Structures are given as structure tokens and as C-alpha cells.
């Protein structure tokens, strides 16, 4: 084993949260090392035009994703079943290089609703504890929206998020999201112009008394210089966004907001092709001594460090904690233990909306997040749930992110999957169809969790992470309810035909269908070491010099995309590290 010179801070995984940690800690003058298993990637040459406009390579084969041949997860629907490997990409996609999934995300940048962060308390107070099914185990985050607000803003300012505020210091603003928590300021940049599909959706929703607003987006609407002095340029709605890098310097990513500055800091170093296999502990098991990784030549390397930041993405964070023996693994039979606890996902539904030949949607005009309209009336606790008997909700989305024909071409209901009739339908509907979708929360449950698989291994011989997950009734009800509201909007759009994808009671979680990469939980944060793995600063309750960033900290999932909250929680954590932990290393919250 090779032993490297000790560093002050080692960052495991160099995607969105690893980059934020790096730049925020760089000012302290500490020696910081980021270990990234993938390669270096940058706008030029890696995402340059025209090679980027290649649906097959990026959108379908997944050139930027973690190669499943080397490492994947296993999945089963229930405790007691035998899990099988996730052999081909479907349900979710993992990032794999410098920038992580932050390279090939959509940039849909949301804040949580205030009640999302105190969900258990809020639901108990408003509807009574009995409103939650016995096996639902939702929790509070251990911090409030008001406490987090400055950090949510800090991440938006980094990204130059485009959007229109709906609530500034409690004052409701026309044209924004009236249901959002109070913001101190408007978005850094105005919204991206609406695509036509989004406009038709918003008109219909408004006619029904709903409150559509432009999706908060990290596709820049105008030139923007962030506080680090890094510049973004306006998005051209190229239609090659999610699953692709951005050739326009328009989509916020570590590459377009942080790396140009961070990579020049003398006290910061990045080692790529360095796959971390465990976090090492001293003999007491209460302090981390650094990490072990496998380098590009396959050698085992020990990297001593005083502080370990685990920012390898939700699933990999959980796996590393389990492989390293930090915290007690969760046991679904007793509900005890914390690592792997409360895995959750999201539940989507979608409607294909088909118009006549005289309605030119031009679906190829699209951005990953900009140019789309949202209705948030039925998300979180924005409406009275009492009569509906479920917890959570979804936002409704109108418009499209592009018209890439292999993945995004849709045909009217009843069209055969192939043959002359399919071809005719593809030809006739392509330019005249758009999408309306719901993007919904999933609560956490006693029998939904993550652990290590007993059978399957990665390329280094380490056990894969095992997911035990299927839908619960609460989510079928949520999806049915919000999808009905989406159908109301679609009817108002007066299309020629509509198709529907909805998950109904009895439908199993289907890993073949992409829904979202918003997987959550497993190293959750909270206010007690009995029920959570991390405190409110994302510091391990068990090993105080280990911090874990990312959606693994979410005690249950939201109806929103997670990264706005992930970024906010990361800034909250790093501020506590800088201002308190470094001065006085030890637990930031007394258990």
C-alpha cells in the first residue's frame, strides 16, 4: 500500500457538493485534496459543439454516466426478496467525472417549502399524528427554512438562477410562485423565455385559477458573473441539455461556476481516477484518519487527512459509510440503526399532449429547465390534505426540454409501437406535441432502505449497494390526485389527443423507466443520533471529523428537484466547519 503525504481536508467525489466544499474551504488556507474516481472534464473540449449534439452517444448510451459494468446497485421490491443488479440504465442515472451529475443535470433549481424541512412536526400539528400510516417514518431536518434561507440564496447566486420571485419577505409577487417560502431577494436573473408548449400550459392553468410561474432554472437567461467572478452566457435552448454537458457555458455546473477559480488555488489539489474504497478510522472508531483509494494504475493508496468530506452522491455516500463501518446500519425489522435508513425516491406521471397540424410546438426548442412553466398549487402542504388522506404532493410541469427523437418523440395513445402506423403517427405528431408531467414526493417508510448486497460485487470486489424499494399507497393516492389536476389543465389546452402514464395501485416500481435521479436518504440528518446519522451541519454523530453532503441527508423526499436544497445544506455545513469546527474540532451539536 502506498501512503501519501497527509492533507488537512480530503473531499471524496468532486461533483456539485464536492466543488462547493472545495471553494468554500480554500480561503481557510488549509491543504485541500479532492479525490474523484472519474476523469477531468471541461466545457472545451469535452462538451464542444457539434460533437455534443449527439443523442446516441450522450442521451442514449450515456457517455458521461458511471459505467454500470464497473459498479452498479442491486434492487428488490421487498425485504425478504432476492435483489438483482441494475444491469442497464433506466430509472436513474449516476454521474462519473469531475462535475459529477452536475454536468448532465437539467438545472431545475428549487427551494424546499418551509414545511418540507419540518415535515413530521408540521403534519402532526396540522392533521394529527394519526394522519401518517404506522410504517411511515418521516422526520424533521433539524433546521428550519428561515435558518437555511441565506444558504439557499447563496447557491442561487452562485448559479445565476433565472426565475421570478413569488414571495419576497412575505409579500406575494404576481407571476411568481405564491406558495414558495419567503425569499430575501428576487432571483439573480430573470426567467428564460417560455417555449410555446409551456405558454399553452400556463394559459390553461391560469384560466382554471391556478398559479403558473416560470421554472426556476440554471439555464442562464442573460450573461451573468457570479461572486467568484466566473461567467455564464445566455442559453440558446439547444435541446441537448439533461444527459449532456453544455457547450454554451449556460448551464450552471461546477465547471461553469467554481472550477475556473478553484483549480488555480495553490492550496487545492485534485486527483482524478482515484476511487475511494473506504474511510479509515483510528482504533477508537470515533475519529477518521483519512481514506483509502485505488488509483489509475490499480494500486491501493492511503491518504491521511484530518477532515473527511464525503460528497460522492447519495447512493455512493451510503455505500461508503457502510463499507467503512461508520454509524449503525439500519435494521428494517427493528427500525433501529441509521445508515441506510429512509431511502426514498420520487413518483412521476406524464401526459403527452397532441395538437392539430396547425399548432407548431417545435419540441426541439428546449432547455433542461428554462422555458418551462410550473404549477405548484398541489405540492408540499400548499393545500388542505385532510380530505385526501395522503402526505406530500407534486408540482405540475408544462413544456419540454427538447425533442431528441430517440428518447423524446411521443405518439398518440393507441399507436402501435412499430410498423407503418407507428411511422405515420411519429411523422404527424412530432412537431405538434408537448408534455405535461407531475413531479411528486415519496415519503420514507420502515421497510424502504439501503444496505450492502450479500452477493453482487463491483469491479474491485466490494459489495454493491442494495436498494429495497417499492411504492406505498400514500404515493399512489398523491399521484392520482395531482395527476387529475394536471388532466384538468390539459383538457383546458384543448388538444386533439392525450396520452397518460400513471402509476396505479398494484404497479411495482419499474426500474426500466426513467423517472428522476432524485434518490434520497440513507445518511439522514436530524436532531438526534437515535434517529439520524448526521446533525444539522451534516456532521456524523459517530465520527465528528466526517461530514456527508448531498441528498443522502434528506429524511424523506420532496416534490421538488433536490439540488437547490442540497446546495443550501452544503453551504450551511461548510460555514459551520469554517467558523466553528476548525477552531474547535469536535461535535458541533451535543447529542
Amino acid at each position, binding site marked *: 500500500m502506498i501512503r501519501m503525504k497527509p492533507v488537512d481536508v480530503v473531499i471524496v467525489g468532486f461533483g456539485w457538493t464536492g466543488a462547493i466544499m472545495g471553494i468554500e474551504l480554500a480561503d481557510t488556507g488549509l491543504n485541500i485534496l479532492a479525490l474523484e474516481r472519474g476523469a477531468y472534464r471541461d466545457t472545451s473540449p469535452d462538451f464542444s*459543439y*457539434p*460533437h*455534443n*449534439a*449527439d*443523442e*446516441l452517444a450522450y442521451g*442514449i*448510451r*450515456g457517455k458521461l454516466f458511471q*459505467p*454500470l*459494468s464497473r459498479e*452498479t446497485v442491486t434492487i*428488490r*421490491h421487498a425485504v425478504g426478496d*432476492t435483489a*438483482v*443488479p*441494475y*444491469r*442497464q*440504465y*433506466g430509472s436513474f442515472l449516476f454521474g462519473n467525472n469531475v462535475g459529477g451529475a452536475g454536468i448532465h443535470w437539467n438545472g431545475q433549481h428549487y427551494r424546499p417549502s418551509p414545511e418540507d424541512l419540518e415535515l413530521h412536526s408540521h403534519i402532526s400539528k396540522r392533521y394529527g399524528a394519526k394522519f401518517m400510516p404506522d410504517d411511515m417514518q418521516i422526520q424533521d431536518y433539524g433546521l428550519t427554512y428561515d435558518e437555511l434561507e441565506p444558504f439557499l440564496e447563496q447557491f442561487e447566486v452562485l448559479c445565476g438562477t433565472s426565475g421570478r420571485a413569488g414571495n419576497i419577505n412575505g409579500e406575494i409577487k404576481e407571476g411568481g410562485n405564491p406558495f414558495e417560502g419567503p425569499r430575501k431577494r428576487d432571483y439573480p436573473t430573470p426567467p*428564460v*423565455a*417560455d*417555449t*410555446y408548449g409551456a*405558454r399553452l400550459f400556463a394559459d390553461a392553468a391560469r384560466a382554471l385559477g391556478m398559479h403558473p410561474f416560470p421554472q426556476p432554472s440554471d439555464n442562464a437567461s442573460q450573461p451573468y458573473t457570479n461572486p467568484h467572478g466566473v461567467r455564464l452566457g*445566455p*442559453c*440558446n*435552448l*439547444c*435541446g*441537448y441539455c439533461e444527459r449532456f454537458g453544455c*457547450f454554451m457555458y449556460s448551464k450552471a455546473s461546477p465547471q461553469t461556476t467554481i472550477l475556473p477559480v478553484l483549480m488555480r488555488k495553490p492550496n487545492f489539489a485534485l486527483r482524478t481516477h482515484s476511487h475511494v474504497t473506504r474511510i479509515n478510522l483510528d482504533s477508537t472508531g470515533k475519529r477518521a484518519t483519512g481514506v483509502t483509494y485505488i488509483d489509475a494504475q490499480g494500486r491501493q493508496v492511503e491518504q491521511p487527512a484530518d477532515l473527511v468530506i464525503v460528497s460522492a452522491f447519495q447512493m455512493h455516500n451510503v455505500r461508503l459509510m457502510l463499507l467503512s463501518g461508520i454509524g449503525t446500519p439500519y435494521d428494517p425489522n427493528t427500525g433501529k440503526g441509521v445508515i441506510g435508513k429512509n431511502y426514498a425516491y420520487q413518483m412521476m406521471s406524464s401526459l403527452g399532449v397532441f395538437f392539430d397540424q396547425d399548432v*407548431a*410546438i*417545435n419540441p*426541439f426548442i428546449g432547455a433542461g429547465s428554462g*422555458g418551462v412553466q410550473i404549477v405548484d398549487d398541489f405540492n408540499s402542504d400548499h393545500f388542505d390534505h385532510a380530505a385526501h388522506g395522503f402526505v406530500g404532493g407534486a408540482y405540475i410541469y408544462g413544456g419540454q426540454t427538447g*425533442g431528441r*427523437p*430517440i428518447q423524446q*418523440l411521443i405518439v398518440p395513445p393507441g399507436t402501435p*409501437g*412499430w*410498423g*407503418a402506423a407507428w*411511422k*405515420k403517427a411519429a*411523422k404527424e405528431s*412530432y*412537431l405538434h406535441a408537448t408534455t405535461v408531467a407531475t413531479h411528486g414526493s415519496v415519503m420514507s417508510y420502515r421497510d424502504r432502505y439501503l444496505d450492502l448486497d450479500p452477493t453482487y460485487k463491483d469491479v474491485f470486489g466490494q459489495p454493491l449497494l442494495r436498494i429495497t424499494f417499492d411504492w406505498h399507497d400514500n404515493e399512489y393516492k398523491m399521484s392520482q390526485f395531482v395527476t387529475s389536476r394536471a388532466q384538468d389543465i390539459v383538457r383546458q389546452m384543448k388538444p386533439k389527443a392525450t396520452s397518460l402514464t400513471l402509476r396505479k395501485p398494484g404497479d411495482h416500481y*419499474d*426500474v*426500466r423507466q426513467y423517472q428522476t435521479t432524485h434518490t434520497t436518504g440513507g445518511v439522514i440528518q436530524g436532531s438526534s443520533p437515535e434517529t439520524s446519522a448526521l446533525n444539522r451541519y451534516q456532521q456524523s454523530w459517530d465520527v465528528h471529523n466526517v461530514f456527508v453532503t448531498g441528498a443522502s441527508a434528506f429524511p424523506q423526499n420532496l416534490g421538488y428537484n433536490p439540488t437547490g436544497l442540497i446546495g443550501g445544506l452544503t453551504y450551511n455545513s461548510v460555514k459551520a466547519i469554517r467558523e466553528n469546527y476548525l477552531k474547535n474540532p469536535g461535535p458541533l451539536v451535543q447529542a
Partner: protein
Amino acid sequence: MSNKPSSPSRRVFLRQSMAAVPAVGLLGTSALAQTQSAAPAAQAAYTPRYFTAPEWEFLQAAVDRLIPADEHGPGALEAGVPEFIDREMEGAYGHGGFWYMQGPFAPDTHPTLGYQLRFNPRELYRTAIAAIDDWCQKQHQSTFAALSPEERDGVLHALEKGDITLDQLPATSFFAQLLTNTKEGYFADPMYGGNKHMAAWKMIGFPGARADFADWVEQPGKVYPLGPVSIEGDKA
């Protein structure tokens, strides 16, 4: 037998000549040049690198039905879909380089948990084509490629629904793979061998690799006037 119109080699020859052999003998070179601007230029015949001759016949006969040629636009054959699939078989994808391929394999797992066969794409095509041809021999005393278009549709429907039982693998898995790769080849950038002359993009109105619509967002509902471009810079 080889002179009968239904014989496999003759059918395949007809398919190939339609797709691949330009009528050079009939038209002079200048006439050919003229027709090129009006109709897609004919391609040089492609010689498969992975598929054997009988497999190649199967593949052409199958994709020809999945996306048939008609007045609406190109069929999978003239779009070069078989060439696309053959080329994919030779790359990392065909060798299963993108899939987790370690055992144990549990092919009887609930389909919602995804692909669980031990075959990579190359092996899947090879195993399935042999099994389907076998089945066709038993049922129709003919290879799949030699069946009439209606009979081929019938076999494809049966594969899709799982009504045919194949040795070694579920028919539905192969059908899904074949249909997926066929649509990929039909719509992918032409540099991969399919979507010849961007004809599939033209048919639906997709502008390909243009990827710049800054001026078009705020002209909602207006028909976009430009035809497609490819990554290598071809226009159509």
C-alpha cells in the same frame, strides 16, 4: 428453388438492390448526379462485420417490417438501420461494455427489475436469430427472411407478445432489444451508419444538430423553416 420469387436469397437481393444498388446501368452518371439532389443518393452496399449471412438476412427482413418504406418516409432498410446495428455490435455497446454483466443471473425475476439475461447484445442477437429461424422452419418450413411481409409481421407480433417460446431466452427481451436498436439507428446521427441522408429527421421535422434556437423561442407557434444538419456538417 433459387429462382422462385419467395426464395430467401432473391428476396434479400431485391431488398439490397432497392436500398443499395444504384441504377447506374440505366442512367448515365450525370443523370445519377441529377437524381441525387431530388432523391437520396444510393449508398454503396455495406458488408456486415459481425452478422453472418443468414443473420444479416434476418436482420434486414425484420427491420424492414418494424419501419417499412412507404410514401410517408424512409423505411429502416433505406435508412441503413442494419448497418447501424452491425456497427454497434462491433463496439463496446455490442460487447456489453455498458451493462453490468456479472452473475449470478436470475432471468425469471419480475420484468420490472430490468434486464437479467446473461447475453450481451451480440450474443442476444446471435442466440435469438438462430432460435427464431428454427421456429420459423418448424412452423413455416422457411427461414424468417423468406416469409412474406404479412407472415413476418405475424412472427414479430408473436415475439413482442411473448407468444413464441424460444430456447434459452424470452422472445420479448429480444424483440425489445431489436426494436430499440432499430429506432436508434433510424434517428441517430448519420455518422453511425443509419438515418442515411437524415431522411428520418426530415420526415418528422427534427433539425438534427442545429442546436441553436435563441432566435426562435420568442416566435411561438411559428413553423421552423430550416432543415436538418448532421454532426459532420451535412445539410438536407
